[in-house]
């Protein structure tokens, strides 16, 4: 029986170092303490580079080559890791520590059956016969709730859905009865509804089996949902630790306050997210100048439709030389309008067609039916130059959004010159400077290349580039989902300011309901290529009509739940 008093994990003064090529040492984890008791879920949170994943890797014996445990002690279920070798001698990964990785699509070997991958650990660590192992594998499959477990044992990973694969990964982690499981972003790659199921499974396993779980995550909602205790890390050090309720409701450390404050709330709309603002007079002046130049596009009153989409349908079908593959209907009869000066949101789970709608309006994908009317012009296959100019887009991935071979100035000036909005290259460069200032970057940023900037800065540059051609509609496709939460908050504030100051209309795509609530005036919920509900944002969040909207709102992990605020729909 598990001893309920003895901790399953006890980390004291853990220090992980990476010797660098230049002779210096990078301290990835700085003298942290952490304790997990049986049946307890302990969340380790922080932004990228905080060192949270390094802690997980140190426990699983997966530290990357030059990295080593430099000091401290790790005790797992009463056994201590040998620090002299930096390896987990005496503690066997797999038997004493179970692992759950982020992406179930890549953490299972595609060439072996589920059964073989489930059993190999038991055969190795528990010395079971293959018949015993198979029987146990079947039990595990039932325990993690996979339908038709007998048949699924013989399946290969590609035959399972993402959620089922993550269940198999969890079963594999449980196979040898470890007392501790390290779950590194276990639901980040999953949709909201699947995420809710997997989180519930992990919670149940902790409760029923008394396993301790170290949950590494960046998502405060997930923390609020299932964690008993939480530790917040910044730059390799612990800044705050305590019970989830305590930390989330009354954070003490300034960084913890900022981090939690930056999480967009789902139950209330804020004017601005409470993050340190870097808005300067320079930025405000630049925006005013941008607005003056944009003046021509601001004719007409606020109720005018910038964009009218009617019965939009999009089909994908790979046609090759020899065969005509089956057609996939990504978008089926979608209709909505975007009014001048408003931010219109499209929300839904992955594969619902929201990005396809954005791509079609932007002209990256051709529609197979319906009409798109943009400022009085029907958009077809070939577009007028003036239409292309007025329609710009900001993409999801800041790291691929900028051409690595082009200086920032050249990248921003290119569309300005292309549309002859500047009479000379010098004037275009001057415009580029103003735009950079308007998005909150120093004007001399333009002389550098993209790799000199962080993700958030790159996204600002991408916004500046999109504003160059003086668009009247800006399409934002998940503009912040690749960013850390505090950077996201700054960028959302920036987009709002730009809308107010530069008079832009926006089509805002996101999977994150909280972000949608903060940003949008009206919103449409998409499911399987169709709009199931379209309403004013406040109406949609306070009185959702469609069953699917209600489910999304109920399942979205949120910090508010632990704060005691109940959603109107729940």
């Amino acid at each position, binding site marked *: 029986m598990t001893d309920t008093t003895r901790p399953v994990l006890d980390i004291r003064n853990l220090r992980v170092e990476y010797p660098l*090529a*230049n002779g210096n040492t990078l301290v990835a984890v700085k003298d942290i303490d952490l304790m997990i008791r049986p049946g307890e879920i302990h969340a380790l949170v922080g932004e990228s580079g905080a060192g949270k994943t390094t802690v997980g890797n140190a426990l699983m014996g997966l530290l990357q080559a030059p990295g080593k445990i430099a000091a401290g002690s790790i005790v797992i279920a009463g056994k201590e890791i040998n620090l002299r070798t930096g390896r987990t001698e005496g503690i066997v990964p797999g038997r004493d520590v179970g692992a759950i990785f982020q992406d179930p699509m890549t953490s299972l070997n595609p060439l072996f059956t589920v059964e073989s991958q489930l059993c190999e650990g038991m055969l190795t660590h528990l010395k079971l016969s293959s018949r015993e192992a198979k029987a146990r594998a079947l039990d595990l499959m039932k325990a993690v709730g996979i339908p038709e477990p007998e048949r699924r044992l013989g399946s290969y990973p590609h035959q399972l859905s993402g959620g089922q694969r993550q269940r198999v990964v969890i079963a594999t982690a449980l196979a040898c009865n470890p007392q501790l499981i390290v779950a590194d972003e276990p639901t980040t790659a999953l949709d909201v509804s699947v995420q809710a199921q997997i989180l519930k499974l992990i919670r149940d396993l902790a409760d029923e089996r008394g396993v301790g779980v170290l949950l590494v995550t960046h998502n405060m909602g997930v923390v609020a949902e299932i964690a008993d205790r939480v530790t917040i890390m910044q730059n390799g050090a612990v800044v705050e630790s305590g019970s989830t309720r305590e930390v989330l409701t009354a954070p003490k450390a300034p960084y913890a306050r900022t981090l939690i404050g930056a999480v967009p709330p789902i139950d209330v709309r804020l004017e601005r997210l409470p993050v340190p603002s870097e808005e300067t007079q320079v930025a405000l002046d630049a925006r005013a100048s941008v607005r003056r130049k944009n003046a021509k596009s601001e004719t007409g009153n606020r109720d005018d439709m910038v964009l009218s989409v009617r019965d939009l349908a999009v089909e994908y079908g790979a*046609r*090759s*030389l020899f065969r005509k593959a089956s057609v996939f209907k990504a978008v089926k009869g979608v209709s909505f309008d975007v009014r001048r000066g408003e931010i219109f949101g499209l929300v839904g789970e992955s594969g619902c067609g929201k990005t396809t709608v954005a791509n079609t309006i*932007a*002209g*990256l994908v051709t529609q197979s039916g319906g009409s798109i009317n943009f400022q009085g012009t029907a958009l077809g296959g070939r*577009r007028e*130059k003036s239409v*292309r*100019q007025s*329609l*710009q*887009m900001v*993409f*999801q*991935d800041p790291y*691929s*959004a*900028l*051409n*690595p*071979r*082009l200086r920032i100035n050249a*990248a921003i000036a*290119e*569309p300005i010159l*292309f*549309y002859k909005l500047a009479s000379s290259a010098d004037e275009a460069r001057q415009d580029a400077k103003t735009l950079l200032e308007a998005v909150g970057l120093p004007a001399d940023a333009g002389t550098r290349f993209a790799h000199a900037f962080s993700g958030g800065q790159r996204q600002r540059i*991408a916004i500046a*580039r*999109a504003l160059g*051609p003086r668009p009247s509609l800006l*399409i934002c496709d998940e503009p912040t989902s690749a960013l850390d939460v505090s950077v996201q908050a700054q960028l959302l504030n920036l987009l709002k300011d730009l809308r107010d100051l530069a008079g832009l209309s926006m089509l805002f795509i996101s999977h994150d309901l909280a972000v949608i609530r903060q940003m949008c005036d009206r919103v449409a919920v998409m499911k399987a290529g169709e709009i199931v509900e379209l309403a004013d944002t406040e109406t949609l969040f306070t009185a959702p009509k469609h069953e699917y909207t209600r489910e999304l709102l109920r399942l979205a992990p949120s910090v508010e739940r632990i704060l005691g605020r109940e959603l109107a729909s729940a």
Partner: protein
Amino acid sequence: MATQSLMRRLPPVSVMIASLVLLIMLILVIFAPLIAPMDPRDVASYSLMDMEIPPAFMEGGDPRFLLGTDNQGRDLVSVILFGLRISVVIGLGAVIFAAVLGVVFGLVAGFFGGMVDSIVMRVADIFVSFPTILVALLISGIARAQLSAETMLAWAPLVLIFSIAINEWVQYARTVRASTMVEIARDYVRAAKVIGLPAPRIMGRHILPNIMSSVMVIATINLAGAILTEATLSFLGAGMPPTYPSLGTLIRIGNQFLFSGLWWIAVMPATVLVILVLAVNVIGDYLRDHFNPKLMAR
């Protein structure tokens, strides 16, 4: 420390030696007529009196002939210098021809996709089904049956360049197509499309600079391959004729004297060939690891 970080940025010693060797060879090739002790094409400049003299460092060697002489009394240093020249020119010609062809087709196939892509890649499949050496031998055989000896002589280098490039362009096309497909999925290319830039401009200004490093790596590795292929064809008798010998032709000639103990006639040009190709490969290998470790191993 500054010197230390500078040291770290320099390529390994082997690469520096290879670059030096290649540089020297290029100088020798460009100034061959000035450097070579004699002109192997000028019958008056050599004499049968000097035939089959071993290299200078061996017993019976003659200091006038550093690497010895061949069966006609020609100085091997001169013969090899001119042979090297022909090998390098044909190799470079084939690489440039293949690269231009491959980059254009690869870009177009990757950028437009769909039907265009299918057609280009199926054609590429057929071309690559037949190895360079086989195709070149066939062309040579057909040419022999159809053309006069003089015509063949005049056209030999161009036929060689064509036969090698017609097969090798597929490598560039495949890599460029794959890289193009990766790049067009990136947001900066999508942004360029949304901005409204025309396709040729997106391909030329945005995509091409980002895939150029892979093209350069393939071109370097490919140069080694092209020189080898030319040498092999000439060795088999389907390449450069004995009157305008490349390194491969020289080895073919030397091969006949292997059993008479006149090993240097074959081994000397072979050594130069291997050093040349090795130098190119060392540099190519370094470039591949440096720029694009994921490129297919050859």
